[in-house]
């Protein structure tokens, strides 16, 4: 999924939340505080409202993270992102010819309306995602046919050998909905969605709050612990912080980087970073001169003082990035190191290029994104030192999407996260020219990358796949179509009464494991 | 005229005006008095300070005007008009409506356009007698009838702009007499009206005087009105009293101040149709370059050298005649045929 940084953050009136009661003192709670308790209502504040609770529709985290709580998928990502674990499916197996996968469903899973979950529901659900207008159609595009030999068996036939299929099935979009939406229209269903997840939908006041309550019939006995979870929409980051310190909410979904210091000093509050697949990068439009010159791109990479940005903008809450696949995936190539900031080398690289004495170019940032603005200004001043005049232009997020899609930009920041635990999705998204995405809109086109990606996804041996991915990462590192800047963790600030909160690398909250102490 | 002490005695009233950056002496040492039930005309050209005098008596001067000196005795009580202390102002404010009321020149601006006229009379009624609003309203209707508004029941809820000029002025008069004041100050109440209406209003005044037994201080530039309505007269010129007479007839018959005389000569008279009217040469001095001596001196036909030198002493004579002139007109040069109409 793509984490959206929107103009909303511009509205962030920072009001100094926590600061009222903020004396110093060691923050945080005693990590493993006793025996899990049942009950309690967890309130979470988030920046954006969910768009839709129909699994095949949204791309926004606000919706995704709720969908993951009210529906079940066949498998779920492990909390550490290392692989997938059973959920609705207890067993799965690739056929000998590697052209199909068979999943066995558990028999005790029920929708919250009491009906059992069957293979027909699975088939219907996947078909919804395959529709052209679904944003994740590309994930399920490889599935050519689905068979349902019995109510608890489903067979996926794939167009080519497809190792990542189990990981694909863990994608929120592939959540299982009742067949034909239980006889309702999609729109009606979306108003009162029915799933088989740990929580069930309770109420939704648009623009304000969405409440889910404990599914007492959840097949995994003893969970969830919480009675209910309420998601409040609070666009302003500071209002969220204030509400956290006053106890109005227990979890702040998007704390601002600049609040790290104050929150971690406040007693009763915690600030934690969880590993995430997010990679922030600087994209360059290789279809334009002189950015089509690899030496120019290398010079830019050398001239950026990542450590400085890390300190000033990320407050050290991120890691300098080397290869384009993040360390949260097994495919991460740790032989590739972050490029060292080196102005001399940068000048040398530029001297070898088509524009040895420098040039003028533009970076387009998302309007209202203060971090991006600060980052751009730091890069601007750095590039000036090697003779590159960087102009800053801002566009609102929607316009920026379009500009990037149309190749109508020089340089722009971006970030990507993976939606599935298998590296396939992100290796392709960040490395291949396919699907109209043009290698993160850099117009970098290498047939080798496509071949490697296909090879990797068809192989079932992780070690050999890793080799392919290593090579892909090396190609990107050599050609610099974009510069991976940082591996960014998922940051949360929350009350120390919250226990067991450990979002996975792909974002899942696993709220069924969360409990509140009194 | 009675022998008892006067209803109103004003002495040494001086008012300063702040205009732009300069101070102007708008009134200088003005004195006059008024007996119970007496009607005194306060006559002068525009700018002579007539209206200012009236407003000073009620403490209703505009913010840029200050009373620098002046005492007033009203109905036996002493007031320091120059006082700025809160208590002194309070005393003066208490007089308003109860002892003294005032009628303004322009009824169309003096009545609040967004409050029914009846209510504005009621305000004044309530000032004197604590009564229920409904009663006060009835009383207001009664008053309106008294001043000659025949369908008062219909007009009581009307707004200012729905009434004719004459009716508006009648409403003002009704409001002014509502609290049965001992003294009514009239600031050119008929100037803004049509000539025909003027006469009706004057009739109202004449009737009211009999009815109320109130003193009347009547400011106007119209000598004919004065002669018709008043017993006594004071002539103001450029903030100074020129001539004053307890008997209007006396002065009109034999003006002693050249200004009074000039004023009388320049008044149109039906008896002398076709003759050219006298007009006083020159124009009234602006307040900031008033001569050191007699303010009228530059325009005076009888001017002597000493006129411009020093202030004019009060040349009071007996029988309530007071003339501020070094070289009084000995005999009325022209006998003006202004006669008080027999009632």
């Amino acid at each position: 999924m793509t984490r959206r940084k929107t103009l909303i953050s511009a509205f962030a009136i920072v009001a100094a939340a926590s600061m009222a009661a903020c004396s110093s003192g060691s923050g945080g709670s005693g990590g493993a505080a006793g025996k899990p308790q049942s009950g309690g209502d967890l309130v979470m504040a988030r920046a954006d409202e969910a768009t839709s609770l129909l699994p095949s529709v949204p791309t926004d985290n606000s919706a995704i993270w709720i969908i993951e709580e009210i529906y079940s998928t066949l498998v779920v990502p492990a909390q550490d992102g290392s692989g997938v674990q059973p959920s609705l499916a207890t067993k799965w197996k690739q056929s000998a010819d590697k052209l199909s996968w068979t999943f066995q469903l558990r028999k005790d899973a029920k929708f919250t309306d009491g009906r059992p979950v069957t293979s027909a529901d699975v088939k219907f659900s996947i078909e919804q995602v395959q529709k052209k207008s679904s944003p994740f159609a590309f994930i399920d595009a490889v599935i050519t046919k689905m068979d349902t030999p019995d109510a608890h068996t489903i067979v996926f036939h794939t167009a080519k050998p497809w190792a990542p299929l189990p990981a694909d099935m863990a994608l929120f979009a592939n959540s299982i909905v009742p067949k034909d939406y239980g006889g309702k229209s999609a729109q009606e269903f979306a108003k009162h969605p029915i799933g088989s997840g740990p929580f069930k939908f309770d109420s939704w006041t648009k623009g304000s709050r969405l409440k889910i309550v404990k599914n007492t019939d959840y097949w995994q006995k003893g969970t969830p612990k919480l009675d209910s979870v309420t998601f409040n929409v609070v666009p302003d980051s500071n209002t969220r912080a204030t509400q956290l310190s006053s106890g109005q909410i227990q979890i702040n979904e998007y704390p601002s980087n600049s609040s790290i210091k104050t929150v971690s000093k406040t007693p009763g509050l915690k600030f934690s970073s969880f590993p995430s697949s997010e990679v922030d990068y600087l994209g360059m439009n290789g279809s334009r001169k002189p950015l089509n010159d690899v030496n120019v791109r290398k010079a830019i990479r050398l001239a950026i003082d990542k450590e400085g940005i890390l300190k000033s903008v990320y407050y050290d809450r991120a890691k300098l990035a080397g290869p384009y696949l993040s360390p949260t995936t097994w495919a991460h190539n740790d032989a590739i190191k972050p490029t060292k900031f080196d102005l001399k080398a940068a000048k040398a690289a530029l001297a070898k290029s088509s524009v040895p004495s420098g040039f003028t170019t533009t970076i387009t940032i998302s309007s209202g994104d203060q971090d991006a603005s600060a980052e751009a200004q730091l890069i601007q001043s750095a590039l000036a030192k090697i003779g590159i005049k960087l102009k800053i232009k801002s566009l609102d997020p929607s316009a920026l999407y379009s500009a990037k899609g149309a190749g109508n930009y020089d340089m722009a920041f971006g970030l990507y996260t993976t939606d599935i635990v298998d590296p396939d999705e992100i290796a392709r998204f960040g490395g291949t020219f396919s699907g109209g995405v043009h290698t993160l809109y850099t117009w970098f086109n290498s047939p080798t990358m496509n071949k490697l990606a296909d090879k990797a996804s068809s192989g079932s041996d992780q070690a050999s796949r890793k080799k392919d991915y290593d090579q892909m990462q090396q190609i990107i590192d050599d050609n610099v179509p974009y510069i991976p800047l940082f591996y960014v963790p998922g940051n949360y600030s929350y009350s120390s009464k919250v226990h067991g909160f450990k979002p996975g690398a792909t974002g899942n909250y696993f709220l069924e494991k969360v409990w509140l102490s009194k | 005229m009675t022998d008892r002490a006067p209803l109103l005695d004003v002495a040494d009233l001086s008012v300063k005006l702040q205009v732009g950056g300069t101070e102007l002496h708008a009134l200088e040492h003005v004195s006059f008095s008024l007996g119970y039930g007496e009607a005194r005309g306060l006559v002068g050209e525009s700018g002579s300070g007539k209206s200012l005098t009236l407003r000073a008596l009620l403490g209703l001067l505009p913010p840029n005007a200050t009373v620098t000196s002046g005492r007033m005795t009203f109905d036996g009580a002493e007031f320091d008009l120059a006082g700025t202390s809160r208590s002194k102002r309070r005393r003066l404010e208490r007089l308003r409506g109860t002892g003294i009321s005032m009628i303004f020149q322009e009824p169309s601006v003096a009545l609040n356009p967004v409050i029914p006229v009846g209510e504005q009379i009621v305000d004044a009624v309530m000032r004197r007698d604590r009564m229920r609003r409904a009663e006060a309203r009835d009383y207001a209707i009664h008053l309106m009838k008294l001043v000659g508004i025949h369908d008062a029941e219909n007009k009581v809820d009307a707004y200012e702009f729905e009434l004719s000029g004459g009716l508006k002025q009648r409403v003002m008069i009704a409001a002014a007499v509502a609290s049965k004041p001992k003294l009514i100050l009239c600031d050119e109440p008929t100037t803004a009206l049509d000539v025909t209406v003027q006469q009706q209003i004057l009739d109202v005044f004449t009737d009211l005087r009999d009815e109320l037994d109130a003193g009347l201080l009547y400011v106007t530039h119209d000598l004919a009105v004065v002669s018709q309505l008043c017993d006594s007269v004071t002539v103001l010129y450029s903030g100074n009293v020129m001539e004053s007479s307890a008997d209007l007839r006396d002065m009109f018959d034999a003006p002693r101040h050249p200004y009074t005389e000039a004023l009388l000569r320049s008044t149109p008279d039906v008896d002398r149709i076709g003759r050219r009217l006298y007009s006083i040469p020159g124009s009234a001095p602006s307040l900031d370059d008033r001569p050191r001596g007699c303010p009228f001196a530059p325009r005076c036909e009888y001017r002597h050298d000493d006129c411009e030198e020093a202030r004019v002493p009060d040349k009071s004579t007996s029988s309530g005649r007071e003339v501020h002139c070094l070289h009084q007109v000995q005999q009325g040069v022209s006998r003006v045929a202004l006669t008080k109409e027999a009632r």
Partner: protein
Amino acid sequence: MLRWLVRRLLLAVPVVWGVVTISFVLMHLSPGDPARTALGEKADAASVAALRHQWGLDKSLPLQYLDYLGQLVHGDLGQSLYYHSSITSLMWQRLPVTLVLIVFSAILAVLISVPLASRSTTKPNGAAALVVRLFNAVIQGSPTFFIGSMLILFLGVRVAIFPAGGYPSSLGSRAWALVLPALTIALSIVPLLVRGLRAAMIESYSSEYVTFARSKGLGTGPIRRRYVLRNAGISGVSILGIQVGALASGALVIEQVFAIPGMGSMLMTGILNRDYALVQACTLVFGLIVVVVYLVTDIVYARLDPRARLS
């Protein structure tokens, strides 16, 4: 009166049409694509095209415009692309919130402005007047978002009297939570209101009818209440009416800051996500509010000021 009302409503039609048309043109002219925004960066071009087709965005602009007007005429505000639901139902949820906020801030604005104007009128050139005037200039110079943040900082955090935003479900705490946002919005129009009221009050104070009232012996209190405030209040009503646009504009920013689920935050979301129909519907409703408030203002004005007759 009825004729007047009908005439005014007819006159409002071109205005509302203009508002809708301008917002249609502006939204469609601005770069950005609702389909791309909905699908995210990863979706391929074919998916985007498919969604555009599904939403009818591949039709020509004039055709879309006519379709939209046709819909409107039938009272249908259309579907929100972002919220995936009917705009009419969204409007029913959001509109009351904003209306309450606007009314609340209008009341606060009056409660603040009248004493300030009054205070600076009694001695028009005194120290108090100067203080009010400086306050006015400072408030006028401070952008709404800055005032909001300062109010949160001091009244929401330092002296934690009010919650720092949010829209609680219980009515009592909701009203309490609305105080700060309403105050912020109110302050944005206070300078104009104070200035206007003050001018009207001074005019009233120096008028002959007040002198006449004083000559009748009315005290300062009754004169202020029955004469000055009453007359100045009439123009106050007009100024307030005209400022409703500003209040609505203020609500837009402030709803975001204080996490209030009103029209403003919905409109902003719509703009950012190129939810064309939603934005058009919101501006339409905003326009209608303004037109209706103006109408009401004129009616109230006529009730208060007998000189103004609705012909």
